[in-house]
Protein backbone atom coordinates (compact mmCIF):
# COMPACT_ATOMS: atom_id res chain seq x y z
CA UNK A 1 0.00 0.00 0.00
CA UNK A 2 2.90 2.29 0.91
CA UNK A 3 0.89 4.87 2.76
CA UNK A 4 2.62 7.91 4.21
CA UNK A 5 1.46 8.01 7.81
CA UNK A 6 0.75 11.60 8.81
CA UNK A 7 -1.83 10.37 11.27
CA UNK A 8 0.60 9.53 14.06
CA UNK A 9 -1.82 10.84 16.64
CA UNK A 10 -4.04 7.83 15.89
CA UNK A 11 -1.29 5.29 15.48
CA UNK A 12 2.46 5.11 15.67
CA UNK A 13 4.34 2.26 14.03
CA UNK A 14 6.30 -0.04 16.34
CA UNK A 15 10.01 0.61 16.42
CA UNK A 16 12.18 -2.23 15.08
CA UNK A 17 13.65 -2.78 18.56
CA UNK A 18 10.15 -2.93 20.02
CA UNK A 19 9.03 -5.44 17.41
CA UNK A 20 12.07 -7.51 18.21
CA UNK A 21 11.48 -7.42 21.96
CA UNK A 22 7.85 -8.44 21.50
CA UNK A 23 8.68 -11.20 19.07
CA UNK A 24 11.34 -12.50 21.45
CA UNK A 25 8.74 -12.58 24.19
CA UNK A 26 6.25 -14.33 21.94
CA UNK A 27 8.82 -16.95 21.02
CA UNK A 28 10.07 -17.37 24.58
CA UNK A 29 8.99 -20.85 25.59
CA UNK A 30 9.61 -20.05 29.24
CA UNK A 31 7.17 -17.16 29.40
CA UNK A 32 4.80 -17.69 32.28
CA UNK A 33 2.58 -15.84 34.71
CA UNK A 34 4.65 -13.28 36.64
CA UNK A 35 2.56 -14.03 39.73
CA UNK A 36 3.52 -17.69 39.73
CA UNK A 37 6.09 -18.61 42.32
CA UNK A 38 8.04 -21.15 40.34
CA UNK A 39 11.11 -20.37 38.25
CA UNK A 40 9.24 -19.70 35.02
CA UNK A 41 6.99 -17.26 36.86
CA UNK A 42 9.98 -15.55 38.42
CA UNK A 43 11.67 -15.05 35.09
CA UNK A 44 8.54 -13.38 33.80
CA UNK A 45 8.31 -11.29 36.96
CA UNK A 46 11.82 -10.05 36.24
CA UNK A 47 10.86 -8.98 32.73
CA UNK A 48 7.88 -7.16 34.18
CA UNK A 49 10.11 -5.43 36.73
CA UNK A 50 12.55 -4.37 34.01
CA UNK A 51 9.76 -2.81 31.96
CA UNK A 52 8.47 -1.04 35.05
CA UNK A 53 11.90 0.39 35.77
CA UNK A 54 12.21 1.68 32.20
CA UNK A 55 8.84 3.35 32.34
CA UNK A 56 9.53 4.82 35.80
CA UNK A 57 12.74 6.28 34.44
CA UNK A 58 10.97 7.84 31.48
CA UNK A 59 8.63 9.86 33.72
CA UNK A 60 11.11 10.22 36.57
CA UNK A 61 9.01 8.36 39.13
CA UNK A 62 10.79 8.14 42.50
CA UNK A 63 9.94 4.45 42.84
CA UNK A 64 8.99 1.97 40.07
CA UNK A 65 6.18 0.75 42.31
CA UNK A 66 4.45 4.04 41.56
CA UNK A 67 3.95 2.85 37.99
CA UNK A 68 0.84 0.73 37.43
CA UNK A 69 0.52 -0.97 34.06
CA UNK A 70 -2.87 -0.65 32.39
CA UNK A 71 -4.49 -1.51 29.08
CA UNK A 72 -3.91 2.00 27.74
CA UNK A 73 -4.64 5.66 28.18
CA UNK A 74 -8.36 5.25 28.63
CA UNK A 75 -8.04 2.77 31.46
CA UNK A 76 -5.41 4.93 33.14
CA UNK A 77 -7.63 7.99 32.95
CA UNK A 78 -10.73 6.16 34.17
CA UNK A 79 -8.74 4.64 37.01
CA UNK A 80 -7.25 7.99 38.00
CA UNK A 81 -10.38 10.10 37.78
CA UNK A 82 -12.98 7.68 39.08
CA UNK A 83 -10.65 6.00 41.56
CA UNK A 84 -9.46 9.24 43.13
CA UNK A 85 -12.96 10.72 43.23
CA UNK A 86 -14.53 7.67 44.88
CA UNK A 87 -11.71 7.20 47.38
CA UNK A 88 -11.84 10.82 48.51
CA UNK A 89 -15.55 11.33 48.49
CA UNK A 90 -15.85 12.00 52.20
CA UNK A 91 -13.38 14.85 51.81
CA UNK A 92 -15.42 16.60 49.17
CA UNK A 93 -17.29 16.20 45.90
CA UNK A 94 -15.84 18.90 43.67
CA UNK A 95 -13.60 18.26 40.67
CA UNK A 96 -11.93 20.78 38.37
CA UNK A 97 -11.11 20.04 34.73
CA UNK A 98 -10.98 21.88 31.41
CA UNK A 99 -13.29 22.01 28.43
CA UNK A 100 -10.75 20.43 26.15
CA UNK A 101 -9.99 17.20 27.99
CA UNK A 102 -10.05 13.93 26.10
CA UNK A 103 -13.38 12.09 26.12
CA UNK A 104 -11.99 9.55 28.57
CA UNK A 105 -11.77 12.34 31.15
CA UNK A 106 -14.98 14.09 30.11
CA UNK A 107 -17.07 10.95 30.12
CA UNK A 108 -15.57 9.71 33.38
CA UNK A 109 -16.53 13.04 34.90
CA UNK A 110 -20.00 12.79 33.44
CA UNK A 111 -20.45 9.44 35.12
CA UNK A 112 -19.23 10.86 38.40
CA UNK A 113 -21.65 13.79 38.02
CA UNK A 114 -24.48 11.29 37.90
CA UNK A 115 -23.26 10.06 41.27
CA UNK A 116 -23.31 13.43 42.95
CA UNK A 117 -19.94 14.90 42.10
CA UNK A 118 -19.81 18.52 40.93
CA UNK A 119 -17.50 19.36 38.06
CA UNK A 120 -16.12 22.77 37.14
CA UNK A 121 -14.95 22.71 33.54
CA UNK A 122 -12.65 25.61 32.75
CA UNK A 123 -12.45 27.20 29.33
CA UNK A 124 -9.26 27.81 27.44
CA UNK A 125 -8.19 30.98 25.69
CA UNK A 126 -8.01 31.34 21.90
CA UNK A 127 -4.54 29.91 21.93
CA UNK A 128 -5.93 26.78 23.58
CA UNK A 129 -4.46 27.19 27.05
CA UNK A 130 -6.07 27.28 30.44
CA UNK A 131 -5.10 30.02 32.87
CA UNK A 132 -3.55 28.57 36.07
CA UNK A 133 -5.11 31.45 38.00
CA UNK A 134 -8.54 30.22 36.88
CA UNK A 135 -7.71 26.82 38.33
CA UNK A 136 -6.72 28.41 41.63
CA UNK A 137 -9.92 30.46 41.65
CA UNK A 138 -12.08 27.43 41.05
CA UNK A 139 -10.81 25.58 44.13
CA UNK A 140 -13.31 25.33 46.97
CA UNK A 141 -13.13 23.50 50.29
CA UNK A 142 -14.95 20.66 48.53
CA UNK A 143 -12.37 20.27 45.78
CA UNK A 144 -10.70 16.85 45.82
CA UNK A 145 -9.28 16.54 42.32
CA UNK A 146 -7.92 18.65 39.48
CA UNK A 147 -7.54 16.96 36.10
CA UNK A 148 -5.78 18.83 33.29
CA UNK A 149 -4.24 17.25 30.22
CA UNK A 150 -0.58 17.77 29.37
CA UNK A 151 -1.03 18.18 25.62
CA UNK A 152 -4.21 18.16 23.64
CA UNK A 153 -4.70 15.31 21.19
CA UNK A 154 -6.36 17.50 18.55
CA UNK A 155 -4.33 20.68 18.69
CA UNK A 156 -1.09 19.54 20.29
CA UNK A 157 -1.19 22.56 22.58
CA UNK A 158 0.61 22.05 25.88
CA UNK A 159 -0.90 23.32 29.12
CA UNK A 160 0.94 25.10 31.95
CA UNK A 161 1.04 21.87 33.97
CA UNK A 162 3.86 22.71 36.37
CA UNK A 163 1.99 25.84 37.49
CA UNK A 164 -1.25 23.92 37.92
CA UNK A 165 0.56 21.14 39.76
CA UNK A 166 2.03 23.67 42.17
CA UNK A 167 -1.39 25.17 42.82
CA UNK A 168 -2.87 21.73 43.47
CA UNK A 169 -0.05 20.84 45.85
CA UNK A 170 -0.36 24.14 47.69
CA UNK A 171 -4.08 23.58 48.14
CA UNK A 172 -3.65 19.90 49.04
CA UNK A 173 -5.86 18.83 46.17
CA UNK A 174 -4.97 15.73 44.15
CA UNK A 175 -3.73 16.48 40.67
CA UNK A 176 -4.20 14.17 37.70
CA UNK A 177 -2.52 14.92 34.42
CA UNK A 178 -3.61 13.13 31.25
CA UNK A 179 -0.25 13.04 29.51
CA UNK A 180 -1.11 10.39 26.92
CA UNK A 181 0.16 12.37 23.96
CA UNK A 182 3.18 13.82 25.77
CA UNK A 183 4.90 11.01 27.63
CA UNK A 184 7.76 9.73 25.53
CA UNK A 185 7.47 12.62 23.07
CA UNK A 186 8.46 15.57 25.23
CA UNK A 187 10.06 15.48 28.68
CA UNK A 188 7.48 14.70 31.37
CA UNK A 189 8.72 14.62 34.95
CA UNK A 190 6.09 13.63 37.49
CA UNK A 191 8.09 15.10 40.32
CA UNK A 192 8.73 18.46 38.69
CA UNK A 193 5.08 18.67 37.64
CA UNK A 194 3.81 17.81 41.12
CA UNK A 195 1.47 15.26 39.57
CA UNK A 196 -0.14 12.79 41.97
CA UNK A 197 -1.60 10.83 39.11
CA UNK A 198 -0.40 10.83 35.52
CA UNK A 199 -1.88 8.82 32.67
CA UNK A 200 0.08 7.67 29.67
CA UNK A 201 0.04 5.10 26.90
CA UNK A 202 2.74 3.22 25.05
CA UNK A 203 1.81 3.84 21.43
CA UNK A 204 2.66 7.58 21.37
CA UNK A 205 6.27 6.55 21.97
CA UNK A 206 6.19 3.75 19.42
CA UNK A 207 5.17 0.95 21.72
CA UNK A 208 2.15 -1.29 21.18
CA UNK A 209 -1.46 -0.16 21.53
CA UNK A 210 -3.36 -1.70 24.42
CA UNK A 211 -0.52 -1.01 26.86
CA UNK A 212 -0.34 2.03 29.07
CA UNK A 213 0.32 3.10 32.58
CA UNK A 214 -0.83 5.18 35.46
CA UNK A 215 1.62 6.90 37.73
CA UNK A 216 0.27 6.87 41.29
CA UNK A 217 2.38 8.85 43.70
CA UNK A 218 3.08 6.87 46.87
CA UNK A 219 0.44 7.62 49.46
CA UNK A 220 -2.22 8.79 47.00
CA UNK A 221 -5.65 7.74 48.07
CA UNK A 222 -7.25 5.96 45.14
CA UNK A 223 -9.47 2.94 44.52
CA UNK A 224 -8.62 0.35 41.92
CA UNK A 225 -10.76 0.40 38.78
CA UNK A 226 -10.19 -3.30 38.24
CA UNK A 227 -10.80 -5.25 41.43
CA UNK A 228 -9.64 -8.83 41.76
CA UNK A 229 -6.21 -10.35 42.22
CA UNK A 230 -3.21 -8.73 43.85
CA UNK A 231 -1.21 -7.91 40.71
CA UNK A 232 0.44 -4.50 40.21
CA UNK A 233 1.06 -4.07 43.94
CA UNK A 234 -2.65 -4.50 44.53
CA UNK A 235 -3.54 -1.49 42.47
CA UNK A 236 -4.73 -3.13 39.27
CA UNK A 237 -5.98 -6.69 39.16
CA UNK A 238 -5.73 -8.98 36.17
CA UNK A 239 -3.17 -11.18 34.50
CA UNK A 240 -0.66 -8.84 32.92
CA UNK A 241 -0.39 -8.22 29.18
CA UNK A 242 3.23 -9.31 29.39
CA UNK A 243 4.03 -9.14 25.69
CA UNK A 244 2.59 -5.65 25.41
CA UNK A 245 4.31 -4.51 28.58
CA UNK A 246 7.65 -5.80 27.36
CA UNK A 247 7.15 -3.83 24.16
CA UNK A 248 6.24 -0.76 26.18
CA UNK A 249 9.29 -1.12 28.39
CA UNK A 250 11.58 -1.31 25.38
CA UNK A 251 9.87 1.68 23.80
CA UNK A 252 10.20 3.66 27.04
CA UNK A 253 13.89 2.93 27.23
CA UNK A 254 14.41 4.14 23.65
CA UNK A 255 12.21 7.19 24.14
CA UNK A 256 14.25 8.28 27.14
CA UNK A 257 17.54 7.67 25.35
CA UNK A 258 16.59 9.46 22.12
CA UNK A 259 14.21 12.13 23.35
CA UNK A 260 16.31 15.10 22.31
CA UNK A 261 17.30 13.99 18.84
CA UNK A 262 13.73 12.93 18.11
CA UNK A 263 12.38 16.23 19.32
CA UNK A 264 14.80 18.16 17.16
CA UNK A 265 13.80 16.17 14.05
CA UNK A 266 10.09 16.54 14.74
CA UNK A 267 10.37 20.25 15.46
CA UNK A 268 12.32 20.71 12.26
CA UNK A 269 9.49 19.13 10.29
CA UNK A 270 6.98 21.34 12.03
CA UNK A 271 8.92 24.46 11.17
CA UNK A 272 9.10 23.34 7.54
CA UNK A 273 5.38 22.62 7.38
CA UNK A 274 4.34 25.93 8.91
CA UNK A 275 6.69 27.84 6.62
CA UNK A 276 5.67 26.05 3.45
CA UNK A 277 1.94 25.95 4.04
CA UNK A 278 1.15 29.48 2.71
CA UNK A 279 2.71 28.59 -0.61
CA UNK A 280 0.22 25.77 -1.11
CA UNK A 281 -3.06 26.83 0.48
CA UNK A 282 -4.71 30.04 1.59
CA UNK A 283 -7.50 30.91 3.97
CA UNK A 284 -6.69 28.58 6.80
CA UNK A 285 -6.41 28.90 10.57
CA UNK A 286 -3.66 27.28 12.62
CA UNK A 287 -5.23 25.95 15.80
CA UNK A 288 -2.00 24.81 17.40
CA UNK A 289 -0.36 27.11 19.91
CA UNK A 290 2.85 28.40 18.27
CA UNK A 291 4.88 28.52 21.50
CA UNK A 292 3.50 25.75 23.66
CA UNK A 293 2.79 22.64 21.67
CA UNK A 294 3.97 19.19 20.70
CA UNK A 295 6.67 19.11 18.03
CA UNK A 296 4.85 16.49 15.97
CA UNK A 297 1.40 17.88 15.26
CA UNK A 298 -0.28 20.73 13.45
CA UNK A 299 -3.98 21.38 13.50
CA UNK A 300 -5.32 23.56 10.71
CA UNK A 301 -8.82 24.57 9.69
CA UNK A 302 -9.26 24.93 5.96
CA UNK A 303 -12.02 27.38 5.31
CA UNK A 304 -15.10 26.53 3.19
CA UNK A 305 -14.43 22.81 3.01
CA UNK A 306 -15.06 19.83 5.22
CA UNK A 307 -12.40 17.65 6.78
CA UNK A 308 -13.61 14.16 5.98
CA UNK A 309 -13.65 14.97 2.26
CA UNK A 310 -10.12 16.28 2.49
CA UNK A 311 -9.00 13.23 4.44
CA UNK A 312 -10.59 10.84 1.93
CA UNK A 313 -9.06 12.60 -1.04
CA UNK A 314 -5.64 12.57 0.55
CA UNK A 315 -6.17 8.89 1.34
CA UNK A 316 -6.70 8.28 -2.38
CA UNK A 317 -3.17 9.57 -2.80
CA UNK A 318 -1.92 7.31 0.02
CA UNK A 319 -1.56 10.11 2.52
CA UNK A 320 -3.06 9.26 5.90
CA UNK A 321 -4.20 12.20 8.03
CA UNK A 322 -7.06 12.58 10.45
CA UNK A 323 -9.78 15.11 10.68
CA UNK A 324 -10.42 14.85 14.41
CA UNK A 325 -9.56 12.54 17.26
CA UNK A 326 -9.80 9.07 15.75
CA UNK A 327 -11.68 7.79 18.74
CA UNK A 328 -14.36 10.41 18.03
CA UNK A 329 -15.05 8.77 14.71
CA UNK A 330 -18.68 7.84 14.46
CA UNK A 331 -19.70 10.90 16.40
CA UNK A 332 -20.83 13.66 14.10
CA UNK A 333 -20.53 16.50 16.52
CA UNK A 334 -18.04 19.22 15.85
CA UNK A 335 -15.04 18.72 18.07
CA UNK A 336 -15.56 20.11 21.56
CA UNK A 337 -11.91 21.12 21.54
CA UNK A 338 -12.17 23.27 18.44
CA UNK A 339 -15.41 24.89 19.55
CA UNK A 340 -13.70 25.67 22.85
CA UNK A 341 -11.03 27.53 20.93
CA UNK A 342 -13.75 29.77 19.55
CA UNK A 343 -13.89 28.33 16.03
CA UNK A 344 -17.19 28.58 14.17
CA UNK A 345 -18.95 25.30 13.38
CA UNK A 346 -18.06 25.53 9.73
CA UNK A 347 -14.41 26.30 10.37
CA UNK A 348 -14.32 23.42 12.84
CA UNK A 349 -15.64 21.16 10.07
CA UNK A 350 -12.63 21.90 7.91
CA UNK A 351 -10.10 20.79 10.47
CA UNK A 352 -7.18 18.62 9.59
CA UNK A 353 -4.83 17.07 12.11
CA UNK A 354 -1.44 16.49 10.57
CA UNK A 355 0.69 14.39 12.89
CA UNK A 356 4.07 13.15 11.78
CA UNK A 357 6.54 10.89 13.49
CA UNK A 358 10.20 10.06 13.71
CA UNK A 359 9.76 7.94 10.58
CA UNK A 360 8.64 10.90 8.46
CA UNK A 361 10.75 13.23 6.35
CA UNK A 362 10.39 16.62 4.70
CA UNK A 363 9.65 14.77 1.48
CA UNK A 364 6.56 13.32 3.11
CA UNK A 365 5.37 16.77 4.10
CA UNK A 366 6.22 18.09 0.65
CA UNK A 367 4.07 15.35 -0.87
CA UNK A 368 1.27 16.26 1.51
CA UNK A 369 1.45 19.94 0.69
CA UNK A 370 1.36 19.55 -3.05
CA UNK A 371 -1.48 17.03 -2.88
CA UNK A 372 -3.40 19.10 -0.37
CA UNK A 373 -3.21 22.10 -2.61
CA UNK A 374 -5.13 20.30 -5.37
CA UNK A 375 -7.61 18.74 -2.98
CA UNK A 376 -8.45 22.09 -1.44
CA UNK A 377 -9.09 23.66 -4.87
CA UNK A 378 -11.28 20.78 -5.96
CA UNK A 379 -13.39 20.87 -2.81
CA UNK A 380 -13.63 24.63 -2.71
CA UNK A 381 -14.83 24.62 -6.29
CA UNK A 382 -17.69 22.43 -5.07
CA UNK A 383 -18.44 24.44 -1.97
CA UNK A 384 -21.47 26.72 -1.69
CA UNK A 385 -19.60 28.63 1.01
CA UNK A 386 -16.59 29.46 -1.12
CA UNK A 387 -18.56 31.05 -3.93
CA UNK A 388 -20.26 33.55 -1.72
Amino acid at each position, binding site marked *: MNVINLDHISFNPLLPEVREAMIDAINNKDLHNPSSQHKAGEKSAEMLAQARQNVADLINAADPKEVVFTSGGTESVNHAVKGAAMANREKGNHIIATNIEHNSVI*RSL*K*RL*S*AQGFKVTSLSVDESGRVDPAAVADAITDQTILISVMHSNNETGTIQPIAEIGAIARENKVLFHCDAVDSVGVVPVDVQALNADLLSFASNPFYGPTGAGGLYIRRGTRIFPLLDGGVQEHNKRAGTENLIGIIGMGKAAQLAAAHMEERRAHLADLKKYLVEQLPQYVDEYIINTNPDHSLPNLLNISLK*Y*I*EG*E*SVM*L*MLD*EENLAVSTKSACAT*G*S*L*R*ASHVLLSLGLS*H*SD*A*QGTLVIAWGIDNSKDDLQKLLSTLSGVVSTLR*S*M*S*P*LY*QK
Partner: protein
Amino acid sequence: MYNQVVMDHFKNPRNVGVIEDPDGVGEVGNPLCGDMMTIYLKIDENEKRISDIKFQTFGCGSAIAVSSMLTEMAKGKTLDEARKISNKDVAEALEGLPKNKLHCSNLGADALHMAIQDYDDKKAGIVRPREEREEKHEHGDGETCYCPYCDVELDEKASFCEACQRDLTEEH
Protein backbone atom coordinates in the same frame (compact mmCIF):
# COMPACT_ATOMS: atom_id res chain seq x y z
CA MET B 1 -15.89 2.97 5.16
CA TYR B 2 -17.76 3.74 1.97
CA ASN B 3 -18.65 1.26 -0.73
CA GLN B 4 -17.38 1.57 -4.28
CA VAL B 5 -20.46 3.29 -5.67
CA VAL B 6 -20.21 5.98 -3.00
CA MET B 7 -16.48 6.36 -3.55
CA ASP B 8 -16.97 6.65 -7.28
CA HIS B 9 -19.51 9.46 -6.88
CA PHE B 10 -17.31 11.09 -4.26
CA LYS B 11 -14.20 10.98 -6.39
CA ASN B 12 -15.91 11.91 -9.65
CA PRO B 13 -18.94 13.85 -8.64
CA ARG B 14 -21.44 14.49 -11.44
CA ASN B 15 -23.16 17.81 -11.96
CA VAL B 16 -21.00 19.94 -9.73
CA GLY B 17 -21.47 23.64 -10.13
CA VAL B 18 -23.80 26.58 -10.34
CA ILE B 19 -26.54 27.30 -12.89
CA GLU B 20 -26.55 30.97 -13.72
CA ASP B 21 -30.06 32.34 -13.65
CA PRO B 22 -31.67 29.13 -12.31
CA ASP B 23 -35.39 28.39 -12.32
CA GLY B 24 -35.27 27.03 -8.82
CA VAL B 25 -32.75 26.91 -5.97
CA GLY B 26 -32.85 24.72 -2.88
CA GLU B 27 -30.45 25.22 -0.05
CA VAL B 28 -30.37 23.10 3.08
CA GLY B 29 -28.11 22.77 6.04
CA ASN B 30 -27.78 19.59 8.01
CA PRO B 31 -28.53 20.43 11.61
CA LEU B 32 -26.49 17.49 12.87
CA CYS B 33 -23.15 18.22 11.34
CA GLY B 34 -23.36 21.73 9.96
CA ASP B 35 -22.91 20.55 6.39
CA MET B 36 -24.64 22.36 3.52
CA MET B 37 -25.99 21.70 0.04
CA THR B 38 -27.37 23.88 -2.70
CA ILE B 39 -29.29 22.51 -5.71
CA TYR B 40 -29.83 24.57 -8.85
CA LEU B 41 -32.54 23.63 -11.34
CA LYS B 42 -33.26 24.50 -14.93
CA ILE B 43 -36.82 23.47 -15.82
CA ASP B 44 -38.29 22.71 -19.21
CA GLU B 45 -41.52 24.68 -18.90
CA ASN B 46 -43.49 22.64 -21.38
CA GLU B 47 -42.66 19.22 -20.15
CA LYS B 48 -42.38 20.24 -16.50
CA ARG B 49 -39.14 18.38 -16.63
CA ILE B 50 -35.72 18.99 -15.06
CA SER B 51 -33.55 19.84 -18.00
CA ASP B 52 -30.45 20.68 -16.00
CA ILE B 53 -29.40 20.31 -12.39
CA LYS B 54 -26.24 21.26 -10.54
CA PHE B 55 -25.11 21.17 -6.95
CA GLN B 56 -22.71 22.70 -4.54
CA THR B 57 -21.92 20.90 -1.34
CA PHE B 58 -19.96 21.61 1.79
CA GLY B 59 -19.89 18.28 3.51
CA CYS B 60 -18.50 14.85 4.09
CA GLY B 61 -17.71 12.25 1.48
CA SER B 62 -21.17 10.87 1.81
CA ALA B 63 -22.80 14.26 1.33
CA ILE B 64 -20.86 14.78 -1.88
CA ALA B 65 -21.74 11.33 -3.17
CA VAL B 66 -25.39 11.88 -2.26
CA SER B 67 -25.41 15.18 -4.14
CA SER B 68 -23.89 13.59 -7.18
CA MET B 69 -26.20 10.58 -7.18
CA LEU B 70 -29.26 12.68 -6.51
CA THR B 71 -28.59 15.02 -9.39
CA GLU B 72 -28.06 12.05 -11.68
CA MET B 73 -31.35 10.58 -10.56
CA ALA B 74 -33.29 13.82 -10.93
CA LYS B 75 -31.89 14.91 -14.26
CA GLY B 76 -34.45 14.54 -17.02
CA LYS B 77 -37.24 13.57 -14.63
CA THR B 78 -40.57 15.39 -14.57
CA LEU B 79 -41.20 17.50 -11.49
CA ASP B 80 -43.79 15.01 -10.29
CA GLU B 81 -41.32 12.19 -10.63
CA ALA B 82 -38.59 14.21 -8.97
CA ARG B 83 -40.80 15.07 -6.05
CA LYS B 84 -41.08 11.36 -5.34
CA ILE B 85 -37.34 10.83 -4.97
CA SER B 86 -36.80 10.16 -1.29
CA ASN B 87 -33.73 10.18 0.89
CA LYS B 88 -34.02 6.44 1.03
CA ASP B 89 -34.04 6.17 -2.77
CA VAL B 90 -30.76 8.05 -2.92
CA ALA B 91 -29.17 5.94 -0.20
CA GLU B 92 -30.33 2.82 -1.98
CA ALA B 93 -29.04 3.98 -5.34
CA LEU B 94 -25.70 4.43 -3.61
CA GLU B 95 -25.99 0.81 -2.46
CA GLY B 96 -26.01 1.84 1.16
CA LEU B 97 -24.32 4.28 3.46
CA PRO B 98 -22.70 3.60 6.83
CA LYS B 99 -25.31 3.71 9.58
CA ASN B 100 -23.98 6.91 11.08
CA LYS B 101 -23.94 8.54 7.64
CA LEU B 102 -27.50 7.70 6.67
CA HIS B 103 -28.63 11.13 7.75
CA CYS B 104 -26.39 12.70 5.13
CA SER B 105 -28.79 11.44 2.50
CA ASN B 106 -31.40 13.74 4.02
CA LEU B 107 -29.51 16.67 2.62
CA GLY B 108 -29.94 15.59 -0.97
CA ALA B 109 -33.64 14.94 -1.33
CA ASP B 110 -34.48 17.84 0.93
CA ALA B 111 -32.49 20.25 -1.19
CA LEU B 112 -34.10 18.93 -4.37
CA HIS B 113 -37.61 19.24 -3.01
CA MET B 114 -36.87 22.70 -1.81
CA ALA B 115 -35.57 23.73 -5.23
CA ILE B 116 -38.77 22.44 -6.85
CA GLN B 117 -40.81 24.30 -4.24
CA ASP B 118 -38.79 27.41 -5.03
CA TYR B 119 -39.68 27.02 -8.70
CA ASP B 120 -43.36 26.52 -7.86
CA ASP B 121 -43.33 29.50 -5.52
CA LYS B 122 -41.74 31.71 -8.10
CA LYS B 123 -44.38 30.69 -10.63
CA ALA B 124 -47.09 31.46 -8.08
CA GLY B 125 -45.39 34.70 -7.08
CA ILE B 126 -44.93 33.62 -3.43
CA VAL B 127 -41.90 34.80 -1.52
CA ARG B 128 -41.27 32.67 1.55
CA PRO B 129 -39.04 33.69 4.40
CA ARG B 130 -35.96 31.56 4.61
CA GLU B 131 -36.93 29.66 7.72
CA GLU B 132 -40.27 28.59 6.35
CA ARG B 133 -38.52 27.06 3.42
CA GLU B 134 -36.48 24.71 5.53
CA GLU B 135 -37.94 21.32 5.37
CA LYS B 136 -37.98 19.27 8.53
CA HIS B 137 -36.96 15.73 7.97
CA GLU B 138 -38.15 12.80 9.95
CA HIS B 139 -35.97 10.60 12.06
CA GLY B 140 -35.69 7.11 10.60
CA ASP B 141 -38.86 5.29 9.68
CA GLY B 142 -40.25 3.97 12.88
CA GLU B 143 -37.55 1.44 13.64
CA THR B 144 -36.71 0.88 17.27
CA CYS B 145 -33.80 2.89 18.63
CA TYR B 146 -31.26 1.64 21.12
CA CYS B 147 -28.72 3.56 23.10
CA PRO B 148 -25.38 2.92 21.44
CA TYR B 149 -23.72 2.93 24.85
CA CYS B 150 -25.89 0.72 27.00
CA ASP B 151 -28.26 -0.75 24.46
CA VAL B 152 -31.46 0.15 26.28
CA GLU B 153 -34.44 0.96 24.10
CA LEU B 154 -34.71 4.66 23.57
CA ASP B 155 -37.22 7.20 22.52
CA GLU B 156 -36.47 8.16 18.91
CA LYS B 157 -35.89 11.74 19.91
CA ALA B 158 -33.76 11.15 23.00
CA SER B 159 -30.58 13.17 22.97
CA PHE B 160 -29.45 11.84 26.33
CA CYS B 161 -29.56 8.32 27.65
CA GLU B 162 -31.05 8.25 31.11
CA ALA B 163 -29.86 4.71 31.67
CA CYS B 164 -26.21 5.38 31.23
CA GLN B 165 -26.04 9.13 31.56
CA ARG B 166 -24.54 9.69 28.16
CA ASP B 167 -25.02 12.33 25.55
CA LEU B 168 -26.16 10.77 22.35
CA THR B 169 -25.00 11.67 18.93
CA GLU B 170 -28.31 11.58 17.19
CA GLU B 171 -27.55 8.49 15.16
CA HIS B 172 -29.19 5.83 17.26
